[in-house]
């Protein structure tokens, strides 16, 4: 055998991984982010229209946001946002993180009813209780079977029993809530910018399916987390962006998209967090950035310390506020799913993504979502029902992209969280320090 051929074979054996899928997205490595239009600014007055049609899931895949939202395409294109950061955290319900937000600075959000409780295994009622630690050391089952047990047909009374059945505890901890003493930075975000108290996980299941809805507007054959991944040929938000000459990047020091796509840092478009900070500092952020934490360390997934998660989000915000692109930026801080932590609002139904495909129309329990931007309404609480495909739709609306499925086609695109009128103070007060010592306090 010739030496050159032997070297080639050895090199291939060392570098070729036959188990790897190839998503065909290599072009993102050379795609340049188009320069921001300097003429974009205030004065975009949007109307709310076609709400009944969207509630009836009237719009199919491929529908442009302009048609479904009832706003001219030119008006949507004038929205002064050219960069979107999706800070998707892990596994916390709205009531769990913000059970006291109604009383602590944002009265617009719905309070947890005093009567809300869950029975435990002894039949005793368990009421929401102030959490004693920011490091919960149990992870309740939160795949589809568990979530059905939690939601219990809309009674929202199965969280404690599910946690008891899937952890070595009595399950009471899933009724815990935090306040602004525990999580001062998160509470500041929630009351300073625009928060939604009707943002639901798109699927009553775990990480993979819910994140799939953000990227594909369907669960793409994935129901439970862990083994099955969406096929690489699934039409995606990545495709839509690149088709339009727009860029995206996935930033994480752990697994990008929390492992839901089986990608790693060798895949195109995947970067370390430092590269996000550098891009923000230099004003070279791609059009869409997906930002994820390190699993169970600073991504807020139990057993992570929530205060470490606060610190991570605060660092991203600091770089965003100092970025030359801040005036063109919208950040969505949200959670992929509720992680089987209790929430009192029964999830409604969403639109069937694709006929004769995924049957999943039951949304999962509520998760926090805050729009952070100079253009975000300040101190605003939205009650419009949506799920993660509303973020997808927001991106499609701003960049003039068609819907991937009927789910995002009929979403409201989160536009009520923004105010693009002129004469507003676009400044942001200095954020508070993050909480500390919460992990040791038990």
């Amino acid at each position: 055998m010739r030496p050159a051929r032997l070297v080639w074979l050895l090199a291939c054996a060392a570098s070729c991984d036959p188990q790897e899928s190839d998503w065909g997205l290599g072009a993102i490595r050379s795609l340049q982010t188009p320069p921001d239009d300097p003429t974009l600014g205030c004065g975009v007055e949007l109307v709310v229209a076609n709400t009944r049609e969207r509630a009836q899931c009237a719009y199919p895949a491929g529908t442009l946001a302009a048609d479904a939202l009832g706003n001219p395409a030119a008006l949507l294109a004038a929205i002064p946002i050219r960069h979107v950061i999706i800070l998707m955290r892990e596994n916390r319900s709205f009531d769990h993180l913000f059970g006291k937000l109604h009383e602590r600075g944002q009265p617009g959000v719905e309070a947890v009813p005093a009567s809300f409780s869950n029975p435990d295994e002894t039949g005793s009622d368990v009421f929401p209780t102030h959490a004693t630690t920011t490091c919960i050391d149990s992870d309740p089952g939160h795949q589809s079977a568990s979530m059905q047990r939690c939601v219990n047909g809309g009674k929202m009374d199965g969280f404690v029993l599910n946690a008891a059945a899937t952890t070595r505890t009595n399950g009471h901890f899933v009724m815990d809530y935090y306040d602004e003493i525990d999580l001062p930075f998160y509470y500041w975000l929630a009351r300073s910018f625009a928060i939604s108290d009707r943002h639901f996980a798109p699927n009553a299941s775990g990480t993979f399916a819910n994140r799939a809805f953000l990227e594909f507007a369907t669960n793409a054959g994935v129901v439970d987390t862990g083994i099955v991944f969406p096929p690489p040929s699934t039409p995606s938000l990545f495709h839509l962006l690149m088709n339009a000459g727009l860029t995206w990047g996935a930033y994480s020091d752990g697994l990008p998209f929390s492992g839901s796509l089986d990608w790693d840092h060798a895949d195109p478009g995947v970067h370390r967090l430092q590269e996000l900070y550098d891009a923000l500092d230099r004003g070279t952020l791609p059009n869409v950035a997906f930002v994820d934490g390190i699993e169970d360390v600073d991504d807020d997934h139990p057993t992570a310390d929530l205060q470490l998660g606060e610190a991570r989000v605060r660092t991203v915000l600091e770089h965003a506020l100092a970025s030359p692109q801040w005036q063109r930026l919208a950040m969505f801080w949200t959670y992929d799913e509720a992680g089987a932590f209790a929430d009192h609002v029964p999830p409604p139904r969403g639109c069937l993504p694709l006929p004769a495909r995924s049957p999943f129309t039951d949304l999962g329990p509520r998760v926090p979502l805050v729009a952070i931007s100079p253009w975000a309404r300040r101190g605003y609480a939205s009650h419009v029902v949506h799920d993660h495909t509303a973020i997808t739709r927001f991106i499609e609306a701003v960049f003039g992209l068609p819907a991937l499925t009927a789910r995002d086609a009929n979403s409201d695109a989160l536009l009520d969280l923004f105010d693009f009128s002129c004469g507003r103070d676009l400044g942001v007060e200095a954020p508070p320090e993050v909480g500390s010592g919460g992990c040791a306090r038990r």
Partner: protein
Amino acid sequence: MPESGARRWARRGAALLVLLSRGAGAQPLESAAAPRFDSRVRGVIGGVGIGTSSVGDYLLVALGGQWQGIQSLRAGRWLLQWDVLLAARGGYLANQEPYLFLLGARLASFLELGYRWQAEQPLSPYLGLRAAADQQVLGHFGRSFSDFDQFNSVDGVGGLVARGALRLALGASLLEQERSLLLVGFLEEAFQDLQVNTEALALTQLGLAARFDLRSGLSAGLEGAWGFARERQDSQRALRDQRQRVSLRGGLRWVFEHTGWIEARASLARDSNQLEYSGGRSYATRDAPVFDVEVVYGFALERFLQ
């Protein structure tokens, strides 16, 4: 006058056949009527298979019956091959945790009838027509088939999986007292039914196949194929996509003198897709490769080697 490419390849092919036959201990080619070749086995089988798929790895066992053979007819004018397997099948699909236990049945069969132009010669051009079908029904206790859309995808393994193929094969057949060798190129249309998350698929495949049988009971086969599906239009999303597949599979069976036989089969395949958006970009994707290995032991109820 220089030798044409086709003629040169034909000459090389014939030389290869001669080398193969000599390498296997064959007698020199003669102009006598081809001898009768008949190798049949039928019995009860038990098998175990492992594999990977786009919906997870699996471990499946089978218990049932199998009838397979190769037989020359009409003094070597025709060559008949068949394989019929009917078995209960069950095991685990690792598409979620805990793994999904599946139980059901599989009916897999093919029949190929080939024509040997020069029946009187051991070496003859060969034209074959094959029909194949592979139906599998694997269910999960306590859940109906329609519930499979509530699980992680089971497409290609669980639920009802129906595949079929029609093949036209053209090549050469070497038929002698002790052995049979088939070398063919084939054109095949393969079908797969609509599943929960996967569109129905029709693949046009081109491939090469070889099968070698010894009268003493050894049978070996190897084939490789490249196929493409018809372009699929998604008018709502203004895209079209086309699937391609490369596959390689082989098998080895040994029929023991008295008790039965053992057979090992393996396959490797990889799908790729070309997505093209109207007015946008195109994306060439590739699924992870999938492989399958199955070992079957058969207890012979009928064994005929002539």
